[in-house]
């Protein structure tokens, strides 16, 4: 190829580039353009997500990442206050409520002047269809939160009375939970009934935002509702953009292409973001906590005393400090710290650094401890490796094995394959201690991976749920901890990073999950 050929090729390429550049000045018809006014461009908040979201159906959303869409478009009767460390239930679509002395009847007064996004006025008649749909469509997930409602009456348009089949001291927390009941326009429920596909892309709530354009797997848009009853947020639209690579998240936050990112325990990413110009890192309180599970069916770990010595012999504080730094605080009890008063949330096992040496020559001599960790949970491998190092140093043979998501779930619940120990970052469904204890420690608990059992625990939980006697959870904390079957490592905060141009980020997070935001709290600096 000679010089002339190169020149010809270069000229052609340049001409092509110039042509395309010239063409780019004539937009033609473009898809996905906001219908907003001229302020739309600078009033759009773009938030990054590192994985695709599940369908944002208000009745069945139960994964986490889709909840920011749901909570933007739908509201419940009550909710948790944002920007506080300890969960506090505050009004939402109900302005006031009373609970009967027997704990069975909840009377809510609805907020006046509220309309659903489809124009239907909010009246008490809207509650029953929403409850019914939550119970049926949400049966695979959070439907249990409304399953205890036996009767719904509507004395007038502004009053709804929910009657439970049995007293449940967690019921208001169920309603306030991010997974809890959301009110849906009864007209939409009538029109679309069980059409989950419709609810995956359309909304019929009362929230500050409406579902906009959804480019599945790429971008999900919320647009401000013109009929919102409350103080709307400062953004005309909110885009949730899926960006797989955390490196790209960092670059796009630095360049301003992204305005914010709410993540989990990805420490290296947020360490880097903390030094990125015009970006600030915020730490949200949450009830997420890494929990260690000890398998009573594993060789050598069937005895409570052995498990207690194992738990007590490990230097958990150093592990928490090394892995999470100031993102976490070592736990002193089995419940998340903000869930139960500190005096009631006390570990029963006293730390004993010499305990491991005793096990190495005693109960665990000749045994191999296998720690299976979920490789998809940030920090899990570091915790597992640190634990293995401590055990091996003490003379206990230990190894660390990582599992991808599907392999993890198939292994942990299978007694023939389950490892000696595992760990998982758990979060409760609501801020009530019953949701935490029942999830992890009950024989029927969804995350009771090794099927550990504490005598009388379910009965204690049932009693506490009926009576509302929170002091019962002190006994639960003691018994669970003493069993040596579980150890809560730390109270985790959730990292978030926002451009300095976003105001209100520090007060935007709901306290249970940490990753869910009240989008009305966010506004552009200008």
């Amino acid at each position: 190829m000679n010089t002339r050929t190169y020149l010809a090729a270069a000229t052609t390429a340049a001409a092509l580039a110039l042509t395309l550049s010239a063409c780019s000045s004539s937009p033609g018809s473009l898809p996905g353009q906001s219908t907003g006014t001229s302020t739309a461009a600078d009033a759009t908040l773009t938030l990054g997500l590192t994985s695709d979201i599940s369908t944002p159906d208000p009745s069945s959303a139960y994964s986490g990442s889709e909840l920011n869409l749901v909570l933007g478009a739908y509201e419940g009767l009550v909710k948790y206050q944002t920007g506080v460390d300890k969960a506090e239930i505050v009004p939402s679509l109900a302005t006031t409520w009373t609970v009967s002395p027997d704990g069975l009847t909840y009377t809510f007064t609805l907020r006046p002047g509220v309309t659903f996004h489809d124009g239907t006025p909010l009246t008490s008649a809207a509650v029953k269809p929403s409850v019914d749909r939550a119970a049926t469509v949400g049966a695979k997930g959070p439907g249990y939160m409304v399953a205890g409602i036996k009767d719904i009456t509507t004395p007038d348009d502004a009053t709804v009375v929910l009657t439970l089949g049995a007293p449940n001291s967690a019921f208001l927390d169920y309603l306030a939970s991010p997974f809890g009941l959301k009110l849906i326009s009864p007209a939409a429920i009538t029109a679309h009934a069980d059409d989950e596909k419709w609810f995956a892309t359309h909304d019929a709530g009362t929230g500050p935002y409406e579902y906009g354009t959804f480019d599945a797997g790429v971008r999900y848009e919320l647009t401000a509702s013109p009929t919102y009853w409350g103080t709307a947020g400062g953004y005309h639209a909110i885009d949730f953009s899926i960006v797989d690579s955390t490196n790209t998240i960092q670059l796009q936050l630095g360049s301003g292409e992204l305005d914010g990112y709410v993540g989990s325990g990805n420490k290296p990413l947020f360490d880097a973001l903390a030094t990125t110009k015009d970006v600030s890192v915020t730490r949200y309180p949450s009830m997420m906590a890494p929990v260690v599970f000890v398998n009573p069916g594993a060789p050598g770990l069937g005895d409570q005393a052995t498990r207690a010595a194992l738990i007590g012999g490990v230097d958990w504080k150093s592990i928490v400090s090394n892995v999470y730094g100031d993102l976490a605080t070592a736990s002193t009890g089995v419940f998340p710290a903000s869930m139960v008063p500190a005096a009631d949330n006390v570990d029963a096992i006293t730390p004993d650094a010499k305990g491991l040496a005793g096990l190495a020559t005693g109960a665990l001599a000749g045994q191999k401890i296998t720690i299976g960790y979920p490789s998809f949970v940030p920090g899990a491998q570091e915790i597992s490796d640190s634990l293995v190092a401590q055990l091996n140093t003490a003379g206990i043979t230990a190894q660390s094995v990582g599992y991808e998501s599907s392999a993890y779930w198939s292994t942990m619940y299978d007694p023939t394959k389950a490892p000696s120990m595992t760990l998982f970052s758990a979060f409760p469904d609501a801020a009530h201690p019953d949701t935490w204890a029942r999830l992890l420690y009950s024989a029927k608990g969804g995350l009771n991976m090794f099927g550990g059992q504490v005598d009388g625990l379910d009965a204690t939980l049932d009693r506490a749920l009926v009576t509302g006697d929170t002091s019962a959870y002190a006994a639960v904390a003691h018994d669970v901890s003493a069993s040596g079957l579980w150890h809560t490592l730390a109270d985790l905060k959730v990292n978030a990073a926002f451009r300095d141009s976003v105001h209100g980020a520090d007060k935007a997070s709901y306290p249970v999950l940490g990753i869910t935001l009240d989008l009305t709290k966010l506004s552009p600096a200008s």
Partner: protein
Amino acid sequence: MAAFALRRLGALLVVLFFLTITVFVLGKVGDADPVRTYIGVNATPAQVAAARVELGLDDPVPVQFWHFATGLVTGDLGISLSTKRPIADDLSTALPATLELAGAAIVLTVIIGVLLSALYSRPGRVGAALRLVFFSLASAPTFLIAMVSVLVFYRWAGGLLPAAGRSSYGPYPDGTGFYVLDGLLHGSPQYAWDAVRHLVLPALAASIGAGVALARVLADGMTSAMASPWARTARSLGEREGTILRRHALRNASSPGLSLLAVQAGFMVSSLVVIEQVFSWKGLGSYLSTAIGVGDFTVIATVCLVLGTVYVVLNTVTDIVLAAVDPRIRLS
């Protein structure tokens, strides 16, 4: 040629049949429980059990295979357990995304290969230095090229080229899924140009290694061709070097180049997983990667079948093109 294409189509069906069985068996013998991904990690054992029944995971394996195979034939592939959307809907966006990226990468591979082939055989120290650079580029891991290109063209060059995604505007509701084409079909050069800008970095990252390999094959072929007796004869008849190169040498050297390109293209489609992850390109690779992580067998199997089909089709097309380019080759 029609008979040849029909025979290849028959072979494709056989390949797909065995691929289906292989992927299905692998999916069933592997440790995978996608249920908690589907219904949430906090689900109770009763909810998990109900979901297993709903998803047919408790059915006998032959029954599951029958459901999968009939779903493939009827196009009803069911729901993705991770996205909870119909798999057919997910594929309708992921497949064009990957094919558009792969197509652009193949075009860039050819451009890089042809341009570099002339430099590759350059004598002296300059040629040696160039070969060292080419070797370095070809041996660099794809993800490294991808990340460096993002750093250079997005961060250091002030956002000259986008770092992620396929478009600044999203898809046309009635589009084909090929964004460049959609922009042109909708009379929007701005949209098409934006799609091209999004294509450049991932396509470049995917094509550099293949382009250098192609350059080497073309350079070797052309060097041999230019030294052959017929080239000498052409020179003695007064033909200019450039004409000999274009009309004769390049054509003769193109056969091994095309064969290599077919192999590279086949691998390229299936190896875009990393590229798609780095550039948040929502194609088959990205879709497959997520499905593997959560054990979504139906998606894994379906994507494998699609990739297998693309591989066979690409090779068939290459064989046809080879026969058209080189009369010595007969389709048989």
